[in-house]
């Protein structure tokens, strides 16, 4: 094989979307170049075999599966009774960033197998992937800490006096923040699953998501 254009020519030759002028040029080349002519002839059966695929009809299936499996969450305040001030502290979005930070620091690993969940700590073979994810998580944690700070400041301003009523309002408000927080983490986790399957083996975020989700009523 001495023609340096063979890969290009063969690809164009079997290209159903090639423009007519380009097709003419390819056919001209093939008619004069023995290398390319031989290669086209040799590969034609492979291309024909692919074209012989018989399109199969789609069996009936549940097309609403996507929307059904992915309903937006109802705001928590509407789903459960008004929380008492006592355990509002646990719901502080601050907790989320804490979980994230802990996961980063301890390199929490969560492995999913047929046997169920397994949480492990420390480094492992997948360290390279973990480091990538660490960067991402650290950034997430940083952003969240900033947001928490702003939120606390805003909260303190908004609920300046500590009457019982305003405390309950504040509890509601934190509940909403937490619901938003969960939604955001869940969205991030699902995007990782869908778009970045390579990092799923090192699911620190999954670990923190599962822990956080575990707090749900």
């Amino acid at each position, binding site marked *: 094989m001495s023609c340096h254009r063979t890969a290009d020519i063969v690809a164009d030759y079997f290209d159903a979307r090639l423009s007519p002028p380009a097709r003419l040029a390819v056919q001209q080349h093939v008619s004069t170049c023995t290398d390319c002519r031989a290669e086209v002839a040799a590969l034609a059966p492979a291309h024909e075999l692919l074209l012989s695929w018989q399109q*199969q009809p789609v069996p009936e299936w549940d097309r609403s599966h996507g929307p059904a499996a992915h309903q937006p969450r109802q705001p928590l305040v509407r789903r459960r009774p008004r929380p008492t001030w006592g355990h509002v502290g646990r719901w502080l979005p601050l907790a989320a960033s804490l979980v994230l930070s802990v996961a980063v620091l301890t390199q929490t690993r969560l492995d999913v197998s047929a046997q169920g969940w397994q949480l492990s700590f420390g480094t492992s073979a997948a360290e390279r992937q973990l480091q990538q994810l660490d960067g991402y998580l650290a950034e997430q944690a940083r952003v969240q800490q900033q947001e928490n700070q702003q939120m606390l400041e805003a909260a303190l301003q908004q609920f300046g006096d500590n009457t019982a009523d305003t405390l309950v309002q504040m509890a509601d408000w934190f509940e909403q923040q937490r619901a938003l927080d969960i939604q955001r983490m869940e969205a991030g986790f699902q995007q990782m699953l869908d778009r970045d399957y390579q990092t799923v083996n090192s699911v620190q975020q999954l670990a923190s998501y599962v822990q956080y989700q575990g707090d749900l009523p």
Partner: protein
Amino acid sequence: MEPDNELIANALNGSLHAWETLVRRYEGRVYNYSLRLTGNRDDALDLMQDVFLGVYRNLSRFRGESQFISWLFRIAHNKAVDLARRRHANPVKGQALPEDPDAWPESQSSGSQWPGSQTSDSGPQELAMAIESNVAIHRLLQALSPEQRLILELKVFQGMTFDEIAMMQEISANTAKTRFYAALKKLRALMEGHHELSPNR
């Protein structure tokens, strides 16, 4: 016919009808793609469902800069690789066949690297692809690398241009052509090893 972008916008606004219209528009392509990869109806349905779930979850991230079909097939490819990896790591019946198609047992015509796709009592008649060429195509594609499978899928079955493929995979059109050429050559070599697939048997 409503354009894809309109259906996507309406689906994002909660219209189930728009979503189902969009799904019906592309499910045939995705199902047959899944069938080529898995070789049987049940796994193909599972994979297709998985793909559309991924599409739905990410729908708000589709910016319309690329064709919807190339965006969809990026997800489909990831799901397929992910599924193959899971199957490989956790084979149901430990029947994963070797990469080398010459080592395929002659008697086992339902051979595939998707161990879940075959049980001891499911013969080739259960492949839901009674058509000989479909079975042959499935088996040959199994022996290619994921990258080679993808380029043939996008070029031959999805009918994308090399420029569209290049944009989708963030490679040059020349690289796409070189990959296509290599994949076709590999396929031809594999056919040589299978006399029953040779055109002049």
